[in-house]
């Protein structure tokens, strides 16, 4: 049967995270720092709104672009928090998570062979999504010494006449990296000069710490017209299972994305959309509450990792820390597997997020402080044991 599978699908490698998942799942009593979703259940008032929506019998399709009231709520939220205004009837599309929005944006924009630049280590779906849309993924490695920011000179080096899209994700999964305004302005300048379209996945925007300002590239001069702003409710509002994301972009592009969305998906589920309206209109205190929890855990986990001798500059976004494990003499995969076998703590090897993740592991702090504490104790024991054996 394998010869029947389309070549560009067959050639996509299995996700490294899936491999690791299977090992973890076969074990008992593992403390997992490998989870890329909030540990909080969706705030009650949002769940309650979803229940109310079901009670009222709201169980049908919605318009392809999404409920008009939700698009109005998105327009108002994005205007207020990101400083970019989008026309709700024509410039906003509600998708099934940001993942779908990225997929349809790529498919709407790419001709075969067009190149898509993205910073790496990055979320696992970017390169495969580009390949599936018949584009060519071009990784731009980012470095820990730059706090995992994308550097304009590194980006520009990899631009060719085929370059069409730059895919950004700040704050970044898996590094927690963020982009200060000045660095982002330099990237915007490169995009304008080389006429690149930007897909900006800002799903972790609400989870920015140390009073760092989150800046959307869409808000910079001359960028709104070349940017697809991508966001959703999954992370900041702890609504992963509701599957609600959205894309904001100039009308012709939204129209093109809609052509794919309407035939492939039809619409995002109405229950999730109703919940999203409640989340956007009344969810800010709950988001703030979770933000505080994440920030405190981040402080704890970064201090603990540094104390045990794993270099870990304190990241300013998302809910991940990305410590360097080279000092242990192990590869990321060896480190993760042995930590799992010897101490029953799961972290994700950095290369699951691209080859430039080698030498690092991703630890998620979307887990209770109690669990984090035990995990850090076990990990410290593991690292100390390695050093002893090496000495």
């Amino acid at each position: 049967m394998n010869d029947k599978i389309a070549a560009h699908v067959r050639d996509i490698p299995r996700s490294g995270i899936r491999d690791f998942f299977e090992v973890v799942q076969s074990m008992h009593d593992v403390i997992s720092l490998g989870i890329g979703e909030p540990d909080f259940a969706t705030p009650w008032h949002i769940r309650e709104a979803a229940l109310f929506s079901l009670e009222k019998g709201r169980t049908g399709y919605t318009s392809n672009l999404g409920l008009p009231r939700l698009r109005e709520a998105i327009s108002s939220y994005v205007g207020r928090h990101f400083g970019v205004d989008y026309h709700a009837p024509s410039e906003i599309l509600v998708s099934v998570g940001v993942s779908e929005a990225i997929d349809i944006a790529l498919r709407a924009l790419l001709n075969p062979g067009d190149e898509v630049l993205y910073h790496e280590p990055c979320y696992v779906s970017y390169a495969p999504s580009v390949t599936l849309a018949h584009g060519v993924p071009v990784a731009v490695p980012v470095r820990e010494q730059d706090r995992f920011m994308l550097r304009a000179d590194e980006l520009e080096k990899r631009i060719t006449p085929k370059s069409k899209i730059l895919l950004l994700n700040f704050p970044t999964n898996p590094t927690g990296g963020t982009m200060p305004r000045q660095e982002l302005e330099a990237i915007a300048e490169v995009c304008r000069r080389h006429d690149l379209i930007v897909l900006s996945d800002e799903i972790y925007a609400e989870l920015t710490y140390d009073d760092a300002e989150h800046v959307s590239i869409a808000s910079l001069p001359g960028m709104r017209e070349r940017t697809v702003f991508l966001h959703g409710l999954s992370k900041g509002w702890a609504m992963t299972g509701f599957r609600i994301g959205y894309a904001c972009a100039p009308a012709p592009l939204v129209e093109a994305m809609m052509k794919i969305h309407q035939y492939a998906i039809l619409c995002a589920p109405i229950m999730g959309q109703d919940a999203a309206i409640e989340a956007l209109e009344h969810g800010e205190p709950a988001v703030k509450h979770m933000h505080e929890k994440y920030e405190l855990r981040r402080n704890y986990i970064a201090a603990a990792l540094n104390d045990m001798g794993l270099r870990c500059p304190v990241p300013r976004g998302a809910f991940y820390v990305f410590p360097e494990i080279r000092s242990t003499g192990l590869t990321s995969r060896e480190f993760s597997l042995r930590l799992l076998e010897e101490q029953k703590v799961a972290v994700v090897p950095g290369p699951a997020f691209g080859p430039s993740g080698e030498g690092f592991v991703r630890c998620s702090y979307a887990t209770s402080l109690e669990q984090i504490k035990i995990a850090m104790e076990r990990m410290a024991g593991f690292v100390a044991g390695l050093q002893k054996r090496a000495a």
Partner: protein
Amino acid sequence: METLLRLLQQDSTAPREELARQLNLSVQEVNQRIAGLEQEGVIRGYQAIVDKERFDKNTVTAMIEVRITPERGGGFDRIAQRIAKFDQVVSCYLMSGGYDLMVVVQGGSLREVASFVSEKLSTLEPVISTATHFRLKSYKENGALLVGETPDDRLPVSP
């Protein structure tokens, strides 16, 4: 400071090292701040949150609405303080609306609470009337849900 207070309100038994790490402070700084809050009277004490139904099935809690005649000069304060001093009274609040004081009373039996109301509370001269409501079941105590949600069933590793 606000964050430290919130953390203590959630779990006042949290080790000081743990608080310090979360707040990017030294243990000494955390100790100083807590001592300061205690001295200022912001922190009035530390207690365990108890699910009383599991501990003693006979414990009775009642919320009593009390209407009183305010005194010239003293208002409600003097009589409220008198009521609050009874050991049986767990909490006592001045309220807006149809009655004046909400008095939360705890006792070892129904009879004990009833006799407190009839013998102590109602007999105070400024008390015009009382309405006693007995607690039947607790669902949430001091911010802690007593009937929990399903345990964490997320996938153990996800992107």
